[in-house]
């Protein structure tokens, strides 16, 4: 058997590939808004989040206040808090406070998704593996985008935009096949998300995701409550 760290590295490869394409775009954007390549990579290494970073460089470029920066990050990244609570229920017994403080750095949408899809409890070493390879991809992509963004053909960079979303599909579909609860939750979430996007666009993207997710997960917990009972995938 592979060590948990190696398994984390391996499971993180699709995340890193997806990050490479997304952070490439971030690198292009950051340089365009006046940051150096070094500053762009520093932001990626210390934040590890797509939407928050994109909003952040906008605030830096506009000379916004530190308070505006803090509040914007809080709202856009609030979903990580929800993910942290969910993931805290899957940690094995050796996951002590120092390990939690380290691993918390790497709770992103994608790392959370892959970690939650694991059977059984997860170890700190597994998280470190996932986080290392993903962070490497995220920073490398930022560096390449910031320093060489205009060199790739746009047909290729456009097609890479779908990588992360396709990975999300690959995480949701298999359990949705087996569990009516997961299928119903995914359906409600998709419906709410489209309502926000097309009928209530004044609700920002970050809030739309949080609200859609809460509505769908509450509906699922009310209609199909047994799912989380054994800590097992129903």
């Amino acid at each position, binding site marked *: 058997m592979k060590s948990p760290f190696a398994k984390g590295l391996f499971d993180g490869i699709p995340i890193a590939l997806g990050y490479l394409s997304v952070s490439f775009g971030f690198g292009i954007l950051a340089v365009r808004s006046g940051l150096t390549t070094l500053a762009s990579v520093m932001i990626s290494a210390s934040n590890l989040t797509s939407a928050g970073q994109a909003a952040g460089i906008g605030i830096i470029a506009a000379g916004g206040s530190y308070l505006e*920066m803090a509040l914007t990050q809080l709202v856009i990244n609030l979903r990580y808090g929800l993910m942290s609570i969910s993931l805290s229920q899957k940690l094995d017994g050796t996951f002590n406070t120092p390990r939690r403080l380290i691993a918390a750095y790497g709770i992103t949408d994608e790392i959370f998704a892959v970690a939650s899809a694991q059977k059984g409890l997860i170890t700190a070493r597994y998280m470190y593996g996932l986080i290392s390879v993903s962070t490497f991809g995220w920073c490398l992509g930022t560096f390449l985008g910031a320093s060489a963004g205009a060199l790739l053909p746009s*047909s290729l960079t456009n097609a890479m935009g779908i990588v992360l979303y396709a990975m999300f599909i690959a995480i949701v579909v298999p359990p949705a096949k087996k569990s009516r609860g997961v299928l119903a*939750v995914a359906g409600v979430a998709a419906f709410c998300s489209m309502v926000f996007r097309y009928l209530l666009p004044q609700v920002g993207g970050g809030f739309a995701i949080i609200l859609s997710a809460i509505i769908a997960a509450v509906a699922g917990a009310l209609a199909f409550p047994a799912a989380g009972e054994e800590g097992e995938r129903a």
Partner: protein
Amino acid sequence: MSLAVYIAVMAGVTYLIRMIPFAAFRKQIKSRFFRSFLYYVPYAVLTAMTVPAIFYSTGSVATAAFGTAVALVLAYMDMPLIVVALAASAAALAAGWILPFLRF
């Protein structure tokens, strides 16, 4: 306004949002409702992030729809994440080459 302070504020707020709940929740949550809720959160978040954003992810709704269809079929067949992810991207790329020739 200093660039270093901006980056520190960004990184600090983002880290605290992740860290506080992760470090604070030590025990298994007992409430059946809350456990079910947390079990469903990942699927709810991921679906809300994917739909409808995936259709705008490639700069063309047509190529994105093609990539999405490929991802759905392969995911339904339980293919590994990386296979689904790369095949969807390759499908969107191929659709971008082929679609201009299919005007009818």
